[in-house]
């Protein structure tokens, strides 16, 4: 192999330069072995981004192998391409995936979140799919404060929160993809290191699946989309380090997104993919041109040669290093069948987008980068893309959580409003009102219910989607917490009448070099895998974000689950809110008694402690199947799972969460023998509150019991604006639902207006 030249402006390769690139001495040795010589500066930069955790998953890959990724509906497996593809019948398929933009959002919340959305959308249309909806899963430090003068940290958390929401809205609204759901939690552990996980789903016909391989020796390689600037230089490497005070100086690593350009790029790429011109297509995400070039070559088993002088540039005087590592947004690489170049040019002219033929597919397995006649980098593509070192990190278990001895009491009357006013449990309307959640005329169940339900008109299919993860449980017991995340997502789908199809996940953890963090990662992955196996659903892909730490320590382990389900018939679409006074209210599942990790303890007593609830997958599945059967038989008016805040919170939400007037409810649990706080606020899994026509109540109870599901009638829906009353063991508490609604719906807005 030739030696790529040393460019006069480039620094010499010294141990310091190597270390500054985050490359260890062992890794450097491996690079020399692959190249059979020393790398030049540009090549070192290329290796550093390709071998960063963000691109190579070098710390997590052995763990990710534990996920189930196959199944009869899997058309493209996780990891094979940019996103997995799942069959939904009648020749249609969905591609979906979740992606994090945590560190960029910590530094610049608006642009960081916006470009996260842009990135995940590109991942989806690269597959040939038309994006149809987005979700988002967010974590911030606390935004509420009881103090007279709001402390600076709370003010900062609010600023991050409002910037992130505005950024997601900016990008998603402009490009015209509805954001129909998500989740948000506020917790001390995310202070200084918020989590911003964004999800996109697209729809395509089986035969439209596009591949990211550079195939066909001699085929031209096109660059399309925005010009390359010095944006986000080495952002991938940046995402793979801890946030420190100095990283605020890493400021050029922030990129600015242009959703308008992405909209044009999306339409142009889908128009082009409908022709027969494309041999392969790959978005430029982290590590931009570098990553797309070597990955397409590696997938195609080919080589790719590009000339940087032909790359459209925004700024003059960019070095090869800068061009290759730039993370400018809204760009794609397209391998075109020779002879069809004019089709590409015509379409990109029509959409007024920059385009250039920058290279060619070769048969030598080499990623060769030239600047005119000068070869500036020459690296075996497969070794670069796929042979990053793999690390088997050390794992040390954290001490097991201690069971709670006593459950501290609270004033029941004020405990429920206090929980409803907690920003994590309060209405998320302040957020989703800023998102266009109705464009594409498909939102049959809007944000606010257990799952969002979307009518995909082009395919005549009904999809449901949710994202879930209670990281408090994960902090106490990462395996059980991850299992619950899967169970809760599946339960949310069941409550909307859907059958789960597949899962995407986003693993947000601290520095994996710390054995306790790595243990959390491993436990969580195994927990997620157990959950997916239990529900027989494959993982279609996801994202790993490590090094989520601030000076105060690692974030709570947060293995976010995004789950998509299919609703077979529009009559099965179900929402969480009571609909008709007089309907009977039933509880499917037990009364429960697990208080460990509960929101009750956290919000009312400031404790994150105890053993979190256990999930029993066999019972859970039977519960979901039974609920779906009842829904199919037309017996269910509303269904809402109980999660954070327990039965009391779920009942209150069913009363006040709908769009019309708030309903009251009269609830009587009879004799339970439970401490009232435990009855109302425990977070045991496997429970769903349904409302049914009173005339059907007995039939529903009988059917549930036949399937082995504990079921009881606990009360009835009462007229709009009548109170919510809950009685048990000779005591009765009453709340005015209009007050509850005011507290719940205004809580976040109130924090944000201060």
């Amino acid at each position: 192999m030739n030696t790529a030249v040393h460019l006069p402006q480039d620094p010499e390769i010294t141990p310091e330069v190597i270390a500054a690139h985050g490359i260890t001495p062992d890794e450097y040795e491996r690079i020399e072995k692959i190249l059979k010589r020393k790398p030049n500066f540009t090549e070192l930069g290329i290796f550093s981004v390709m071998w960063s955790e963000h691109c190579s998953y070098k710390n997590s890959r052995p763990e990710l192998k534990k996920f189930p990724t196959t199944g009869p509906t899997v058309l493209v497996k996780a990891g094979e391409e940019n996103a997995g593809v799942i069959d939904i019948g009648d020749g249609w398929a969905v591609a979906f995936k979740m992606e994090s933009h945590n560190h960029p959002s910590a530094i610049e919340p608006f642009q960081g979140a916006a470009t996260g959305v842009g990135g995940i959308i590109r991942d989806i249309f690269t597959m040939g799919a038309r994006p149809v909806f987005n979700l988002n899963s967010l974590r911030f430090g606390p935004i509420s404060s009881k103090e007279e003068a709001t402390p600076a940290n709370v003010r900062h958390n609010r600023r991050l929160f409002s910037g992130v929401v505005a950024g997601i809205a900016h990008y998603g609204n402009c490009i015209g993809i509805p954001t129909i759901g998500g989740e948000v939690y506020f917790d001390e552990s995310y202070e200084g290191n918020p989590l911003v996980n964004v999800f996109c789903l697209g729809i395509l016909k089986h035969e439209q699946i596009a591949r990211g391989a550079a195939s066909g020796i001699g085929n031209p390689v096109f660059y399309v989309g925005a010009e390359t600037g010095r944006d986000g230089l080495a952002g991938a490497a940046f995402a793979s380090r801890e946030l420190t005070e100095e990283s605020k100086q890493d400021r050029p690593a922030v990129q600015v997104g242009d959703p308008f350009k992405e909209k044009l790029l999306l339409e142009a790429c889908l128009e082009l993919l409908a022709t027969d011109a494309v041999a392969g297509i790959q978005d430029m995400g982290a590590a931009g041109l570098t990553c797309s070039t070597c990955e397409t070559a590696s997938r195609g088993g080919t080589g790719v040669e590009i000339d940087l002088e032909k790359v459209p540039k925004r700024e003059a005087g960019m070095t090869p290093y800068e061009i290759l590592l730039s993370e400018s947004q809204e760009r794609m690489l397209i391998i075109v069948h020779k002879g069809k170049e004019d089709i590409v040019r015509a379409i990109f002219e029509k959409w007024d987008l920059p385009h250039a033929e920058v290279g060619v597919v070769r048969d030598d397995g080499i990623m060769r980068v030239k600047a005119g006649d000068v070869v500036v980098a020459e690296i075996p593509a497969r070794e670069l893309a796929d042979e990053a070192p793999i690390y088997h990190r050390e794992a040390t278990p954290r001490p097991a959580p201690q069971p709670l001895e006593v459950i501290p009491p609270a004033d029941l009357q004020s405990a429920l409003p206090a929980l409803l006013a907690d920003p994590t449990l309060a209405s998320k309307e302040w957020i989703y009102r800023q998102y266009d959640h109705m464009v594409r005329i498909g939102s049959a169940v809007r944000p606010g219910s257990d799952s969002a339900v979307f009518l995909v008109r082009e395919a005549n299919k009904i999809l449901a989607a949710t994202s879930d993860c209670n990281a408090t449980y994960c902090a106490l017991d990462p395996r059980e917490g991850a299992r619950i995340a899967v169970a809760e997502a599946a339960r949310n789908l069941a409550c909307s009448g859907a059958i789960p199809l597949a899962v995407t996940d986003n693993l947000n953890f601290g520095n994996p070099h710390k054995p306790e963090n790595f243990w959390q990662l491993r436990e969580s992955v195994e927990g997620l895998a157990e959950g997916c196996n239990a529900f027989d659903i494959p993982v279609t892909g996801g994202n790993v974000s490590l090094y989520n730490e601030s000076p105060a320590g690692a974030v709570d382990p947060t293995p976010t689950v995004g789950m998509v389900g299919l609703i077979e018939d529009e009559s099965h679409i179900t929402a969480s809110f009571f609909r008709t006074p007089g309907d009977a209210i039933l509880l499917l599942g037990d009364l429960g008694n697990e208080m460990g990790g509960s929101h009750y303890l956290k919000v009312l007593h400031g404790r994150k402690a105890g053993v979190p609830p256990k999930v029993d997958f066999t019972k859970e599945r039977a519960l979901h199947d039974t609920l779906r059967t009842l829904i199919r038989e037309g017996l269910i008016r509303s269904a809402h799972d109980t999660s954070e805040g327990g039965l009391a919170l779920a009942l209150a939400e069913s009363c006040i969460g709908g769009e019309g007037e708030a309903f009251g409810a009269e609830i009587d649990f009879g004799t339970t023998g439970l401490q009232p706080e435990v009855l109302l606020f425990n977070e045991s899994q496997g429970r769903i509150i349904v409302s049914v026509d009173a005339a059907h109540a007995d039939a529903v109870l009988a059917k549930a019991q036949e399937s082995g599901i504990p079921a009881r009638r606990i009360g009835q829906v009462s007229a709009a604006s009548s109170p919510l009353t809950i009685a048990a063991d000779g005591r009765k508490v009453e709340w005015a639902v209009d007050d509850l609604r005011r507290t719940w719906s205004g809580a976040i807005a109130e924090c944000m207006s201060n």
Partner: protein
Amino acid sequence: MKAAVIRFPGSNCDQDCHYVLAHHYRIETDYVWHKESTLSGYDLVILPGGFSYGDYLRTGAIARFSPIMKAVSDYAAGGGLLLGICNGFQILTESRLLPGALVRNRSLHFICENRHLRVENNDSPFLSTTEVGQVLNLPIAHGEGNYTADEATLAQLEASGQILLRYSDAAGNVSPETNPNGSLSNIAGITNASRNVFGLMPHPERACDPRLGSTDGTFLFDSILKTLGVTADA
């Protein structure tokens, strides 16, 4: 009857409008690309919602210069029915096909939710199947829906019944509390003096399918069809 949906770069409700006309109403509907310069044979032209040119500079400011806009204004001058929804309304005010301007919502936030709208005047091809005082429930989704105009313009709009829709509550009361965005006099939609051009911020195309909550958008499309003497087979 034949309808056209104009596609500007950044339009994103074009497919929704097309869907409602072509599938719900089974009307022959074309997309017309903004680089076209002619527009003939159409009985209805829609400027759809979205973010034409990214909403850069001002909403609708750049789209107004698209080649097709000359044809659109000729079509309107000839009395053709022209409907601007959301960004389409913004383009109409920037083009001076409708008076006034749409500026940033008072809260500075984008707002997406259903809203009640009182029909102020039904004497137009666009709302002839409604009653004055009737309350419609339609989605809004915009960051710049705050209608503004000088006093003389407002007086003129009032005097000649050009204000067709106002933000209200479910009972039809119009007050500052029922104003989502700071719009002058709660204005949600206006027509021109000759009543063939209608711009509104709410999205009627998002309210034509009962599964989406409200079907009040059909009043608007039904009215247009009635005016054109078409019986919908929807």
